[in-house]
């Protein structure tokens, strides 16, 4: 490593799109019987992956191998699991387990040494039961759950590195991330911040696509315009009210 490598490239930030989350499948009675703990109802996989999905695959995300900048991912499971802290040092960065309940998983990402960055902590709520329109969790009976297929809960995010070291930057640019597909090819992953996507999220393995970014931007922009219009309306009403108030005050003053 030459000394010039350990120079920070100022005025530059570089990010990598990732997704984290889980998939869960309900277990059949037969499968459950073969488990050591037969009260477990689901098999789930929690993972940290690149955002784009590999072609012709049934997996959400993970087109790129992230080990070029991630050294280790630690999944901290519920304390009731044996050795709840699972360190994953090589890709795929994921843990598959069985269980019966949803809980918060702490995901800790350690970057490679060249990055000279601290570990990053994410929180994911393990999702076992299907999404509902109302947002209220409900646990369907086994047959329904089996029929509905796997449950997906994924969060897109971006890891941003500011002023990276030259050699780390070189490493990153040597691995450009697979871009998200431009248009929707598969169902989109459901997200609580977009309940409107409930219908669109049905029907098989979801996939993130670039259109989701602009769609969300549009949604936010539309909402902002609506809010501004509403504020305007309220303001006009306020002006009227104040005039009215002025009038009745005057009436009072006149009488007194």
């Amino acid at each position, binding site marked *: 490593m030459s000394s010039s490598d350990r120079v920070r490239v100022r005025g530059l930030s570089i990010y990598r799109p990732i997704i984290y989350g889980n998939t869960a499948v309900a277990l059949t009675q037969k499968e459950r019987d073969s488990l050591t703990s037969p009260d477990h109802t689901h098999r789930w996989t929690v993972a940290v992956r690149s955002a784009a999905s590999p072609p012709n695959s049934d997996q959400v995300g993970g087109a790129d191998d992230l080990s070029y900048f991630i050294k280790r991912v630690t999944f901290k499971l519920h304390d009731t699991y044996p050795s709840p802290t699972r360190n994953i040092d090589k890709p795929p960065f994921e843990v598959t387990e069985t269980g019966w309940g949803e809980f918060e998983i702490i995901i800790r990402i350690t970057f490679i040494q060249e990055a000279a960055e601290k570990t990053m902590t994410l929180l994911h709520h393990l999702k076992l039961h299907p999404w509902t329109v109302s947002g209220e969790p409900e646990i369907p009976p086994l047959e329904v759950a089996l029929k509905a297929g796997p449950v997906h809960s994924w969060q897109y995010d971006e*890891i941003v590195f500011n002023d990276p070291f030259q050699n780390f930057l070189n490493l990153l640019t040597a691995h450009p991330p697979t871009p998200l597909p431009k248009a929707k090819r598969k169902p989109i992953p459901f997200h609580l911040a977009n309940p409107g996507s409930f219908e669109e999220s049905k029907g098989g393995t979801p996939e993130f696509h670039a259109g989701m*970014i602009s769609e969300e931007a549009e949604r936010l922009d539309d909402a*902002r315009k609506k809010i*501004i219009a509403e*504020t305007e309306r309220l303001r006009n009403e306020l002006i009227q*009210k104040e005039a009215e108030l002025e009038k009745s005050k005057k*009436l009072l003053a006149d009488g007194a």
Partner: protein
Amino acid sequence: MAASASDIRSALSLPDPSAVAGPSQPKKPAPTTRKPEGISRELYSLIGPSQPSVAAQVAKPRLKQKPRFATGISSATKWELKSFQNSTRKDGLQLKHWVKASDSVDAEYPFAKYNIQNPVYTYSQDEYTRFLDTSNRLATLKDGKGELEKPWTKEWTDYLFKLYHEYDGRWHVIWDRAEFPPEAGFDLEDLKHRYYSVCRKLIRNRPWPGDEAGRSALINSLQFDIEREQMRKRYLVSLESRTADQLAEEEALYLEVRRLEQTERRFKREREDLLRTLAGMDSGLPYLVEDNGVPLGIFSEPRNLNKKRKTIVGQEIDSPLTPSGAGSSVSAIKRPQNTKSAAYDAQHCIIRTELPSSTSATKAAHQPAYIRSSKIPYLKNNSMQSKVLQSFAEMGLSPSRLVMPTKENVAQLEGLLEAVTAMLETKKLLDKADHDIQVSKKQLAMRNGQLEDGEGDGEPGVKTEEAMDVDQTHDETDGNEGRGHSVGTLSESAFDVNLLRGYKCNESLDTEYKAAEAWIEVSQ
């Protein structure tokens, strides 16, 4: 003769012309075998071996080669009339066009990418009063800098923005269609000036998702210098409206100026020569060299003279006399975006920011790597939090989470949060005004001789019920438009001083309460 030419070449270490000619160039004919047309043999033989350059000049200009059409080898390309979908159309209209049969059927409509919409700028009332309202500042400007800012009202500004979007920024159309009241007296520049200044102020005062360079580039692209533009138009008008006499006079004056300049230069040169002969080689007039350049700042080179004069005589308005228009200066300021590097940055997800020019770059602590969604702003105001949450839920959005937390979307969410907060503030004010009105109405009602009823309602049980009643009616009216009703019904209900106290939120009313209480005491 022939020897001398090659000698000179070798002396000046110039390459031999025949050696330089690459394989792509046709071999020059031997000088002795052929002579070009239009040159006598005697003269030609005098030229010697350096002839290729001369021959090239003398030789007939060759015409462009005729394009070779269907040579019989490849058959004509097959074209088909196919329907296509323009992905930028919202109405899903199906049109047909001719495409090569070899093109794939589901290729994206290639012209869809040119359908670029101007970004829509909107502003809230709050932003308007804070940044955009010029009517108040006018007074201060009047005595200072003069009438630079015309008094724009909110309605006019709204109307201007509506027009801008309706006609997609085509200023001449906008100006043609705009119907401002005649006393405003706006001309095209005023409209442009207002529009661009509003946009600039909005960008400057809002949270910006991208880097500072992008922001300043955007602001620069929205730069509009109204004075310069007006001056440019004045110049153009005066240039257009010159009479023949004026033209002739200008011509004469110009020649006169040229003559004077030449005389002066000659005079200077002579002076310099004289000085040199008297005082030696190193002396002279140092400024003479620089002075040789541009006369009057009109033409960059005297050589252009003839051409330029022709255009002016020919009434063509090639406007070297006018300053460059705002339009061209805008495009010049625009940062030349290196498309290749932009593509590279997009591919590698790189965002470049302008470095602070000071030394702070070295001093500043390194900002550690972060996850983008951590930049989503927190809900600060606790009392407002539930209301913010509620309005976000109504819109089907979340104030703290995003599906795709990209840099732009985080910034968008921040803007939305601000707008929602502003709306809730307004609503709070409105509610307060409502209460105040109710209070006043009650006071009025009380004065109109309903005091007896008020005395009957003195027990606490009834009081709380009353208070709840008011709240309920009030909540209902929050949702719908008809606030007037609630006020009407309430004014008829019994009056209670204690109830009034509960709504004692406006200080200005305090005195009135006191008066009312005093009045009740007296009448009791």
